[in-house]
């Protein structure tokens, strides 16, 4: 097993140092306090600044803890910003798939729909941004669960509701399904929330690969799935391309 990563240890020391003092510290003070070369300290501070753990005063150039540290437990990406940065790719996905597109983020044990693009057939449809979907019976929710964007335990502590006979309600079933989603990199829901409907979803990753949301297409089961009830490969391809494009724009490394 590899030993501790030195740069992470140093980053932790810098954060402790900044948290300990009541005032902002300059680069020289940080470096000399920790016995680091200025260049090394600067590189670490820049990286911490990049992930918003550290802020630099524009006037004095001194450093302090960043606001993101205070909200470590909550989503660091504003949902309206996520929608804004996804809108082009969500449109393109709706155009390519011919199906409705939704984006979701976790909210208090459910999926909050933060963006919705109509199925592009000009029929009457209603925006359902703001709607809440069940985690275990929607493709968006299953993807958020699979990639750790929201915990599974509270769901299993309660009794997951069976919406149809296909809804996964048993812990083993759910765990197996989530494992598969992690392996495949996408997830499906076939008539698990309502009969005749299906959806597929893929994770949206932010900096460092953290999953911040999910994007999915959904519609009539006969359009989403083939005759054997499996999602159409062509749909999966365009879905994953869209998810990757958004992730890339959000600063995730290439997958």
């Amino acid at each position, binding site marked *: 097993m590899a030993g501790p990563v030195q740069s992470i240890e140093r980053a932790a020391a810098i954060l402790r140092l900044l948290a300990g003092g009541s005032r902002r510290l300059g680069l020289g003070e940080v470096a000399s306090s920790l016995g680091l070369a200025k260049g090394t300290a600067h590189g670490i501070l820049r990286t911490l600044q990049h992930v918003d753990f550290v802020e630099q005063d524009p006037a004095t150039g001194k450093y302090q803890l960043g606001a993101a540290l205070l909200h470590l437990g909550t989503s660091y990406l*504003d949902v*309206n910003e996520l929608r*804004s940065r996804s809108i082009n790719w969500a449109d393109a996905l709706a155009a390519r798939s011919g199906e409705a597109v939704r984006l979701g983020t976790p909210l208090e044990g459910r999926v909050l729909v933060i963006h919705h693009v109509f199925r592009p057939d000009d029929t009457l449809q209603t925006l359902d941004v703001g709607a809440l979907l069940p985690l275990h019976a929607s493709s968006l929710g299953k993807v958020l669960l699979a990639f750790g964007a929201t915990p599974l335990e509270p769901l299993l502590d309660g009794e997951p509701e069976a919406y149809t006979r296909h809804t996964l309600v048993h812990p083993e079933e759910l765990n197996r399904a989530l494992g598969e989603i992690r392996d495949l990199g996408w997830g499906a829901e076939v008539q698990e929330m309502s009969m005749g409907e299906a959806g597929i979803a893929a994770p949206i990753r932010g900096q460092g690969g953290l999953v911040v949301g999910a994007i999915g297409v959904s519609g009539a089961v006969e359009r989403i799935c083939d005759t054997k009830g499996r999602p159409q490969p062509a749909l999966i391809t365009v879905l994953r391309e869209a998810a990757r494009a958004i992730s890339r724009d959000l600063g995730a490394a290439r997958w």
Partner: protein
Amino acid sequence: MVERYVMSIDQGTTSTRCILFDHGGRLVSVAQREHQQYFPRPGWVEHDAVEIWRNLQRVVPEALLNARIDASQISAIGIANQRETTVLWDRRTGVPMGRAIVWQDTRTAPLVDELRRDPGEEFFLDRCRLPPSTYFSAPRIRWLFDNVDGLERRARNGEVLFGTIESWLIWNLTGGTDGGLHITDATNASRTMLMDIRTLTWDEALMDFFGVPRPMMPEIRSSAESYGEARALLPGVRITAALGDQQAALFGQTCFSPGEAKCTYGTGSFLVMNTGTDLVRSEHGLLTTVAYKIADQPTVYALEGPIAVTGSLVQWFRDRLGLIHSAPEIETLARTVEDNGGCYIVPAFSGLFAPHWRSDARGVIVGLTSYITKGHLARAVLEATGWQTREVVDAMNADSALALKQLKVDGGMTSDHLLMQILADVLDVPVVRPLVAETVSLGAAYAAGLAAGYWPDLKVLRRNWHRAAQWLPDMEPGRREWEYSCWKRAVERSLGWIQPPQRS
């Protein structure tokens, strides 16, 4: 078979973008880079034209790389650009004469006031259909001649070229100092105050009036036709379209029939209605402009209501007040409150454009009480865009035989759902967003693709349009009227703030 694409370049007020579209009008790749805004004095706004050209040289390869596409797969290039922004450069060295003066810049206000008195609006309206305003290019050329030593003489000697941004980019793309094409298109030329809007040629009387020498002016071409091949950046690829960004958005929304209208929400917002081949003269403070001219087909005209400050108010809220970190967060902040708490913001940063046309107006925040939070201010920021749109829609309805039945919207701010709902509420009509919100880029691509034979005709383009989202009005009529009357009173308070300096 190798797939082919159309490249769209959108050189906007805050950024330069390169987007690739496929046959279905679907977005395949995007690359974007922001450029610096210079505010050297109150009311002055400048860009560095060299930085913009450099940014273009970066985003084009980036867009190709993102989609793993080769330059040989590009069928044509179309350009959409921020309009009226004025660049003067040296014909021999290609170096700009100072920074570009941006459309929001109000330094020509004293000159414009003078023009209103003498020779008066009619002189200009008869020829170019534009009233004197700091918005347009010609007063800027005059200002530069009057303020930069030797510039006018050099221009008379043919050493200086004028262009709006598309001219600058096309000149550079097609060879620059080594035989670059010095051209503009009819939509951009229609915003200079120098073009005869009937004949689409430079108007002798206006040129004489502003003292603009003919040799510095670009040749006026159609919005969609083959101008020539690029020599830099994408050697051999044809440039086949150029349109002002708002005309491009009208085209991208496929508003090809008289009476069809769209509103684009960006830095500013622009309601544009196709009026067909009729040259309609507004009685209510709207502009008559060229919508597009495809090859040698008849010119199509439009009525336009420009609003100077909408998205840039959000940017100001972010960058100058620091109350939010990113523009979309304005929605998050605004949703922390139920209403505006009685607070209104009239963002007359550059005076007020349509339908008021008051360069003496400046921004006001009214209704402040100790109850007001930053959430109320955020709400007032979004509502300002709603009410400014309402004023322009009212003017459009008064000028046109048909009342607007729905508003087709596009642009970056359409991702703000609260703003879209506010729009539906204050206009009392459905607000509809098309499947491609990037209609400026799409319009430039459509025009370029038509000229290059990538798409056969307008009918095919129309079939690409689909509804992606719709917001329905949900505001009690009494409240709508009350809020509108408050807004109007707020506007009253912004007028006449700027006064000529007192002589002692």
